[in-house]
Structure formats: C-alpha cells, structure tokens
C-alpha cells in the first residue's frame, strides 16, 4: 500500500477536523491572548507588606517633608506630609519622583577614590604661597559644610568656598508678614524657597511680578509687568524715585518699556499696602535699596539664628564667597555637587583656578555636572540614599534641623564627600550629624515635629536619644521664634552681578534661561511627562522665539539652530510663541546651557 498525495490531504483534513473537537486550538488561542497580558518585558510589581516611612527631601533647600510608601523595604511612592509646619504637605514633581533617582542609567557606579585622595594630597603639597586648596560647597550651612570648614582650617592653604547667596545665610524673607510683594523675576510660585510655605502665604499678599517673560509665576501673579530684558534695575530705580518723590522717572520708565503711570501705581501700592517686600533672583543692591526705602528690613526681611553647632567646631575656616577669591589662585578644588542649590556657570569657577594644571575633584551622582571638567569624579549617594541634613530655606524665619534619612541603602562604591574631605585633614566625620543633634538638644530651644502623628513637642521634653531617633524618622527641629527677630538683619555686601552688558551688534538677542532646576539635579525618567510627553516645561536645549524674531533669524518652528553667546555656542531646537517678547530667546537650562548663558545674556541664533 503506497501513500499518495491524496491520502496525505485526507489525513491532514481529518486531523484538522479532529483537532477542532479537542481543547488544543481553543486553549492555544486563549493562552496566547493571556500571554499578551504579561509577555516578556512587562514587569511584575513586587507584592509585599505596605509600610510608611518619613524623611525629608534633600533635593533643594526647601527640605520638604516626605511620606514614603514602601513595599517591603522598597519605596514605591513619595508624598508630602500634610500639616507639616514648613512644607505644608507639598512636594514638587522633582520630589515626587525622587525614589527613582538611585536607578538612573546615567548614574556613576564607581570612582577612583583612592587615586583622587593621593592626587589631592600631592597637589596640596605642591601649592605655592599664593595658591590655595579649596572646597566649593554648593549647599552651605549643612553639617557637612561645617566638616569642610573644620577640615579646611587644618589643611595647609585650605579655603572654604560658598556660592554667592542672597541674604548671606543669616537672614530670611518673611512672606507671612508681607502684604505686597514685588518680585523682579524671582520664581516665587515655581519652586522658590519652600513652595508649601509660599503657597500657604500666597492668599495674604498681593504679588507684582516684573519680568520680561510670562513665567509660571507671572501668569499667576496679581499683576505682571512685562519689562524689557535687563531693565530690572531701571524699574527699581524708577520706583525708588517715585517713592522718594524724586525725578527722574520717565527715562527709567522708557528703559523698562512700562508707562510712568504703571510705575507710579506699583510704587503707591508698595508704599500704601505694606508691609512690602521686594525680591529678585540674587538680591541686587537696587532691590535691597527699595526694601530699605519701604521699611521691609526687620519686618519682611528678618534675621535668622544659626542652628547650634558643637563648641569644638567653631575653630573652622571662614565662609568665603567665591566671587571674592582672586582669579587664578586655586590649585586644588574639591566641589561637592551631591547637594546643589544653584548651579554656577563653569566660567565663574574656572576663572579662579591656577593656569597650570589645577586639580579639580568633584563629588557627584553623574558626570553631567562639573564632572565634565574635573580630573576625578567621585560617585556619591543620591537623595533617598543620602544621610545628610538640609539647612533652612531662604523663607524659613526660624532655624531648622532635619535630616534626609535614607529610604534605601546606597550601593557599594559610593564616596561620602565629607568623609573624604575630613580624611584629608585627619578628622573623624562619621557621627557629625549626631554631634550636631546633641548640640541642638543641649541648646534646648525650639520644638520637635514628628510626622507619624503630626505632633509638636518642646525639645526640652525630649530625651537626646529620642531626639536623634525622631530625626532619623524624618522629624524636624524648629527653632523658637526669636523675640528679637525684628532687629535689622546683618546683610552681606552684595555686589552687583556683572550687569547685563548692553547688547552688542553681533549678539542682538537676549537669551533668558528658564527651568534652571532641571540643569543641576538628577531627574527621574518620569519627568519626561513634563519635558517630553507634554510641553508643560521647556525641555533641555529647546528655545522659544517670537515668530518675528524667528523670521529675522531665519529659523522656523521645529528647526535646529545654534545659540551663540560670548561663552560659546550650543545646538537648540526652536519653537515659536508670540507670547515671547521680540528680541528674546527663551532657553531651557540643560547640561551645558548654564555654562553658556546666565539669567540673561546677549545671544544670537543662527540656523544650523
């Protein structure tokens, strides 16, 4: 019996018919549909006990209180703590997603700690008489900062540097007291100070926002003064003149692009609806002069006491403003980037370095910051892993002490910058936070706020160990409000920032940077919801131009272009918006953009 093709067909036909009466085909169809629910690549969230932990956010000086939701030991969501005296239950989008930061693909996993230590020691030994070994602390006022100061005091040629700060760290703005706030471009409602505090105070003051662009703050301000870029000082001068019944006003008004009448009414409001407060990004002399004139000092700008430190720490290097260091004098520079408040453009720092072969070591989570210029980049823990304190924010009237207690353990290979720097001077640094907590406890002032029950207790009633424990569970110590706080604060001499040079022929535009937060801090990939999957916030290397300006520059919507400033050039992607003033290019601060242009810089856009 030989098989024919016909038999084969019959057999196959029969098995097809037979198969239809078995569960197999139906099961395969169902199973493949089920498989599509969990095919490879779709992760399965871990299940486990849901727990709650409290900590404080270390991403910015606001130090907002955080309630973390954990599955087992893994944080899966961060939220604000309602009823918190400082942060009022608020968390910004950066803080809300901070539990993702340990898993950033760009994160540094290891670094040459030993080699760096040797190189630093060798370089310090080589320092010439007028050369110095400095630590640049991008968030001064921490316990770690005290460690750096102590270390620098005992290191030869040691110098402790801090970036210029608006009120010198010993005064604060009291928004609760203010009735009228005039802000020269300060992002008051967009992450300034302690956002929760600003929002809580917002209903009590009238906000006048003077800035060229309609920022997030400007759009919610009671009055937005669309002034010309760089004319803040002129406006301040004009208002000051109105207040003092002085002439002239008109020429200044012309500079700002506002009418005299607008300026007069603002001045009157400031004068008659007090207490008033004048803010700007860096507290320029003009703004401070206005505050003086309006009597804000002692009312809305008040002195703040220091958070106590152990007596033995007082022998420390002084805080030196980076601006006051002579150029070309620093041979060794250690930059602590692990906690960043304001990103300085590299050119301001580079100027201070010696010409020949300076040594720059940076402590950072990634290579994207100053690591681009440093010889050694040492990896540090990121926020939900770090064990660090957060100095009080600029709008915190009372001193405060709170610790960012780690929610997850840092991976192996991380370098603790304060231990590294203390090690250079042979100081022990391990339990500095505990020592400081004990010093605070010893001072005995103020209250301890514990989150679990949203309770406040007088510090006097708390035992030292319990205080330490409470701090590690996210508690917050708040200084007692000083009766003498109405005293005039002692303010540092603020020097005018390099006044915006009048724009020259070849750089006809003014570049204004926004989204500065995104430039420095690590960002959760979920922030792409704001920067990429919507255009709520301007993404890095994107620029917005008025259509008229764009036409003049020969660029179109979506085009790639080159932004040029005196410091260099970068590629940007253009979008058009007739709400941007002509002659202005609004750029997002991305990696490198801060180095290119400050708050507002002459610039030029050419088609790529």
């Amino acid at each position: 019996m030989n098989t024919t093709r016909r038999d084969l067909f019959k057999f196959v036909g029969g098995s097809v018919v037979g198969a239809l009466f078995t569960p197999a085909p139906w099961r395969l169809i169902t199973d493949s549909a089920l498989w599509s629910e969990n095919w490879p690549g779709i992760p399965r969230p871990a299940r486990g006990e849901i727990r709650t932990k409290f900590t404080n956010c270390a991403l910015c000086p606001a130090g907002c209180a955080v309630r973390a939701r954990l599955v087992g030991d893994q944080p899966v969501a961060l939220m604000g703590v309602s009823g918190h005296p400082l942060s009022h239950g608020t968390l910004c989008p950066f803080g809300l997603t901070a539990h993702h930061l340990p898993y950033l693909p760009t994160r540094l996993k290891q670094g040459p700690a030993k080699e760096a230590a040797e190189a630093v020691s060798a370089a310090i030994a080589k320092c010439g008489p007028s050369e110095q070994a400095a630590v640049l602390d991008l968030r001064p006022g921490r316990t770690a900062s005290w460690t750096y100061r102590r270390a620098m005091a005992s290191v030869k040629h040691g110098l402790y540097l801090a970036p210029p700060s608006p009120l010198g760290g010993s005064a604060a703005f009291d928004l609760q007291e203010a009735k009228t706030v005039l802000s020269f471009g300060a992002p008051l409602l967009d992450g300034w100070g302690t956002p929760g505090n600003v929002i809580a105070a917002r209903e009590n003051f009238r906000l006048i926002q003077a800035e060229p662009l309609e920022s997030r703050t400007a759009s919610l301000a009671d009055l937005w003064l669309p002034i010309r870029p760089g004319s803040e000082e002129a406006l301040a001068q004009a208002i000051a003149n109105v207040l003092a019944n002085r002439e002239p006003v008109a020429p200044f008004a012309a500079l700002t692009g506002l009418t005299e009448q607008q300026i007069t009414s603002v001045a009157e409001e400031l004068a008659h609806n007090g207490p008033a407060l004048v803010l700007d990004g860096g507290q320029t002399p003009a703004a401070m002069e206005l505050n003086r004139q309006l009597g804000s000092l002692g009312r809305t700008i008040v002195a703040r006491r220091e958070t106590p430190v152990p007596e033995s720490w007082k022998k420390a290097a002084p805080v030196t403003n980076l601006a006051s260091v002579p150029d070309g004098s620093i041979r060794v520079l250690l930059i602590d980037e692990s906690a960043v408040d304001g990103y300085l453009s590299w050119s301001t720092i580079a100027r201070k370095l010696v010409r020949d072969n300076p040594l720059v070591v940076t402590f950072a989570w990634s290579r994207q910051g100053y690591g681009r210029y440093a010889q050694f980049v040492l990896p540090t823990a990121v926020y939900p892993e770090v064990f660090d304190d957060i100095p009080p924010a600029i709008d915190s009237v009372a001193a405060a002490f709170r610790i960012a207690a780690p929610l997850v353990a840092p991976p192996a290979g991380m370098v603790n910058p304060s231990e590294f720097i203390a090690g250079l001077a042979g100081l022990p640094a391990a339990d500095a936070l505990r020592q400081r907590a004990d010093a605070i406890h010893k001072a005995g002032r103020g209250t301890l706020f514990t989150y679990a029950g949203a309770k406040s207790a007088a510090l006097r009633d708390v035992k030292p160990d319990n205080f330490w424990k409470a701090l590690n569970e996210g508690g917050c110590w708040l200084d007692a409000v000083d009766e003498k706080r109405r005293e005039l604060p002692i303010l540092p001499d603020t020097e005018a920032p390099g006044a915006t040079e009048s724009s020259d022929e070849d750089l006809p535009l003014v570049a204004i940077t926004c989204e500065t937060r995104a430039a420095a801090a690590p960002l959760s990939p979920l922030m792409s919801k704001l920067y990429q999957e919507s255009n709520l916030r301007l993404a890095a290397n994107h620029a917005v131009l008025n259509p008229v300006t764009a036409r003049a520059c020969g660029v179109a919507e979506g085009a790639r272009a080159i932004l040029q400033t005196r410091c260099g050039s970068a590629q940007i992607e253009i979008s058009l918006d007739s709400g941007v003033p002509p002659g202005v290019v609004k750029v997002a601060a991305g990696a490198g953009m801060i180095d290119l242009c400050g708050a507002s810089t002459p610039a030029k856009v050419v088609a790529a």
Partner: protein
Amino acid sequence: MKHRGKIVFLAGVLVALGAGWLGFPRAIYQSRPQPVNFSHKVHADKAGSKCEDCHAFREDGTFADIPSLDKCAGCHAAAMGSTVAEKNFIDRYVTPQREPPWASYARQPENVYFSHITHVKLAQVKCERCHGGEGSTDTLRPYQQDRISGYSRDVWRDMKMDDCVACHRQHGLEHSCLDCHK
C-alpha cells in the same frame, strides 16, 4: 479498497483527538515541585493551627499570603520531629536563613486585585469555598504553570473568572470589571 479515503480521514481525526485530549493537556503545563514538602494536615492536627494563624491579615487589611521564614523558624529553629522533610527544610532554609521559594497556586494574575479580607471578613466566605481541601492535605502538589500564558494552573482550574462573577452576581455585587481588575 473502497473505503480507503474514509479510513485515512478517520485516522487523522483519531490521531488529532488523541493528541488534543491526552497529549496536549499534559504538554501545556510545566511542573515544578514545591521547595519543601509541607503538610497542612500535620500542622492542623499536631500544632492545632487554624488557617489564619499562618495566613494572616495585616493591619491595613492586606493579606500576608504564605508566611515568611520567620514564622516557620519560630517553631522549627531546631527539628521538632524526625521527618526528612523537616530536616531538609531546616538545613536548606532555616539555618542559612533563606526564604523558601514557594510557588503560590492561587496567586492571581497581575491584573487581578483580589482582596481576601473583603471576602473573609465582610462576606464571611469560608476558606474552603475557594481553596477546597488544601488545608487538610498531607503533601504539596507540584506547582503547574501554563507554558504559554505563564499562569498557575490552579488560578483557572477550580475557579474561573466566571465563578467569581457568578457569586458576585448572586449577591448583587457585580458592578464593573474594575471591581476586581486593576
């Protein structure tokens, strides 16, 4: 041969029926033994444990599922009896403090939100209603996993979604898919 075509056709039908009813149900599952030969019966009888003694609820109402090693180690830090199973358990898991990789038969798929407490506490459903006599078995069945869908066999074998729906419908509690799905 007159009926040759028919016979060949029928042979095809029979082969397919055989493969589909006998071979396929076996082939579709991947079998894996449980890490420890645990006897519910022994624990219920000798230790007098009730289900909720080990399979407890937490304060927030979540179900603690299979107890962790701590719970076992509470009694079994050292051998209590003389069974091989217990000795293996202690040697392999208790002493090195390693969680046994239990495979949960009734673990619901990722897209199902099953709340034990609403069923047990609010609706007074007995464990046996869904888990059958699992609590009085002497050995643990091997864990069987569908090779394609990856789901445990027992999620679907004894109780399908239709059974959930039938009971919910009976009690007027069937409102939407998202009642149980997430």
